[in-house]
């Protein structure tokens, strides 16, 4: 297996850090707000951190696009991201209207970025089919 280039190494490091903070902050917020009854500004601050960690995924993928010096691999990441965005937003729009008319159960909004991440997998598959490689954003 080829060794990772610097942009991929930074991507993996940033993603690992973001996910570690996400898990820790989620447990902390759950414990302090649900079990210990923390409220007010402190509760808002605690609840914001997991969401911002998920948001950081977009920044991390954006940095990978900016820092990737191989133009072909960069194009593959852009394709992957556009496919993921299309799938996640389509899911959100369609589900939102189905939910509006009480035809489906409620889905919490934080699941749509998660579907965006699954969409990256679909984008990788599309790259494999059309360009012969999955790319390096996984």
């Amino acid at each position, binding site marked *: 297996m*080829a060794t990772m280039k610097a942009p991929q190494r930074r991507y993996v490091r940033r993603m690992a850090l973001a996910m570690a903070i996400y898990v820790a902050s989620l447990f902390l917020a759950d414990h302090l707000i649900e079990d210990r009854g923390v409220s007010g500004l402190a509760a808002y601050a605690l609840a914001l951190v997991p969401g911002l960690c998920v948001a950081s995924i977009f920044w991390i993928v954006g940095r990978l696009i900016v820092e990737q010096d*191989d*133009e*072909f*691999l960069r*194009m593959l990441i852009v394709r992957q991201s556009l496919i993921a965005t299309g799938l996640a937003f389509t899911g959100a729009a369609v589900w939102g209207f189905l939910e509006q008319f009480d035809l489906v159960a409620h889905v919490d909004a934080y699941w749509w970025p998660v579907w965006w991440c699954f969409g990256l997998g679909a984008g990788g598959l599309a790259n494999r089919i*059309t*360009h*012969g*490689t999955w790319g390096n954003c996984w």
Partner: protein
Amino acid sequence: MKNRLRVLRAEREWSQQDLADRLEVSRQSVNAIETGKYDPSLPLAFRIADLFGMTIEEIFLRD
């Protein structure tokens, strides 16, 4: 766009990885260009042409 990259590489007995290393790109890039799945940017096309000591038009052909 068609190109003669595979033939030029084979004449020099370079692997795709050898060519990728010389061009400072990934092996996937070389494979995608050779198979016509990706057309390189003008700067990369110039680097390829310079490496083989040829003009861009001698390597990349109109469809």
